[in-house]
């Protein structure tokens, strides 16, 4: 037989021992770590006003552990003390906890569906307000501005791009992105049904591109925190993609309530392609426009 087994006695033990002692101590260690992280999140909320208490626990724990490893911090108590005494360090941890991974025309099929299924609805309105909640550095807000321009709706539309992280909002407002990303973004744009030359939408130098002023003019950047702030505006369409996956069920429900109150009847809600209304109270208050791309229409 070609198989090898290592640690044979240990392995056999593993399958038969009752393991009560290890179980108890592991349980205690785990409970202690959870309490410590909750304590840290309470302290951050109390001191800086950013509330991560209802974020996905596994995600927060990973990010916190990563920061501790990078900064050579031995336990949560030490981390907490540093967060509360050093504002610069707190700012680093806040950046760690807010995810800002995004791209232009992310999920090209989604933008194709916007062109085919949503634009005809938007065309029926004299003025269109679009809220991009959790916009991060704005790549998707610029993508939407491009679609609206190509569909002849730019003149009557305003995109409100919001995030709770002022740092990424400032970046979005500048509209400067790395030149290296443009190859991938161009491919996304073409897959999404874009027919123009993508490079016409920005001016580039060796390292960076800057988005055209005509696109920038369509976007209003504002600080808004989905966890702690209330209704932002009455809008025709909300995009909030890959933000709610970071929240627990309770917080997801609160935010869906906020969205429901912000949308006009017949308004359109766009979630990330793996997000759903399934575990919220709002499952029945929307009709499905595109199941796969998670585009919904608020019922009258």
């Amino acid at each position, binding site marked *: 037989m070609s198989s090898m087994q290592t640690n044979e006695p240990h392995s056999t033990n593993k*399958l038969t021992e009752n393991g009560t002692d290890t179980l108890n101590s592991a349980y205690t260690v785990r409970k202690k770590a959870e309490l410590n992280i909750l304590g840290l999140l309470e302290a951050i909320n109390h001191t800086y006003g950013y509330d991560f208490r209802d974020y996905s626990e*596994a995600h927060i724990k990973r990010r916190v552990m990563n920061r501790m490893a990078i900064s050579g911090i031995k336990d949560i108590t030490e981390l907490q003390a540093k967060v509360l005494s050093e504002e610069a360090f707190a700012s680093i941890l806040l950046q760690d906890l807010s995810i800002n991974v995004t791209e232009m025309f992310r999920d090209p099929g989604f933008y194709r569906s916007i062109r085919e299924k949503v634009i005809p609805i938007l065309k029926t309105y004299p003025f269109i307000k679009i809220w991009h909640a959790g916009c991060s550095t704005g790549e998707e807000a610029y993508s939407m501005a491009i679609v609206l321009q190509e569909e002849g709706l730019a003149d009557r539309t305003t995109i409100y791009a919001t995030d709770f992280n002022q740092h990424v909002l400032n970046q979005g407002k500048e509209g400067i992105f790395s030149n290296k990303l443009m190859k991938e973004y161009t491919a996304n744009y073409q897959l999404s049904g874009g027919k123009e030359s993508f490079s016409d939408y920005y001016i580039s130098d060796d390292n960076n591109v800057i988005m055209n002023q005509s696109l920038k003019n369509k976007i209003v950047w504002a600080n808004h925190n989905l966890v702690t702030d209330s209704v932002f505006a009455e809008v025709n369409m909300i995009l909030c993609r890959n933000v709610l*996956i*970071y929240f627990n069920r309770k917080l997801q429900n609160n935010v869906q309530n906020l969205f429901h109150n912000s949308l006009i009847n017949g308004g359109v809600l766009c979630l990330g392609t793996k997000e759903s209304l399934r575990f919220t109270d709002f499952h029945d208050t929307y009709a499905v426009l595109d199941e796969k791309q998670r585009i919904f229409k608020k019922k009258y």
Partner: protein
Amino acid sequence: MNYDAIVIGVSSGGLNAMKIMFSLLPADFSIPIVIVQHIGARSENIWIQLLNDKCNLEIKEADEKEEIEKGKIYIAPSNYHLLIEQDKTFSLTVDERVNYARPSIDVLFETAAEAYQERLIGVVLTGSNNDGSKGIKRIKECGGLTIVQQPDTAESSYMPESAIATIQPDYILPLEEIIKLLIEIDIQK
């Protein structure tokens, strides 16, 4: 010892490995299996459907907030990390790639180890990078059972070799033997 979940990491050569694995699992296999397979960011998950047709158990893409149930096989969606929460539900994230991968095996393994502690089995199969090594180490530290595919029987030996270089696994076996072992453990439950 009873085990509540099995996590499996597989990269290049994975589709063949999964075909073999799924054909050998009986319909009454009860421990839930969660798999990260490295796959292109734009991949549609039609292959999950194809595998499903050849398997006695239900294979599905893991949904966010979904509860992990017995007798099911869950596969991480492409372009998302898959995490397991303390309440044994899934979370998805779009955080940066880990080991050039999203989904990353380490992310699944590390969070699963936190959630299940010693009631977890971690399996590293064929692959050509070192994703999974840190994760299997975490599983061992938390008291879980660790299994690695015997490198010379893997389509791509690098990932199993990397795992073996990181920890001493409880078992190093060819794929068919791994499945036999898992079935044995499941029956003992």
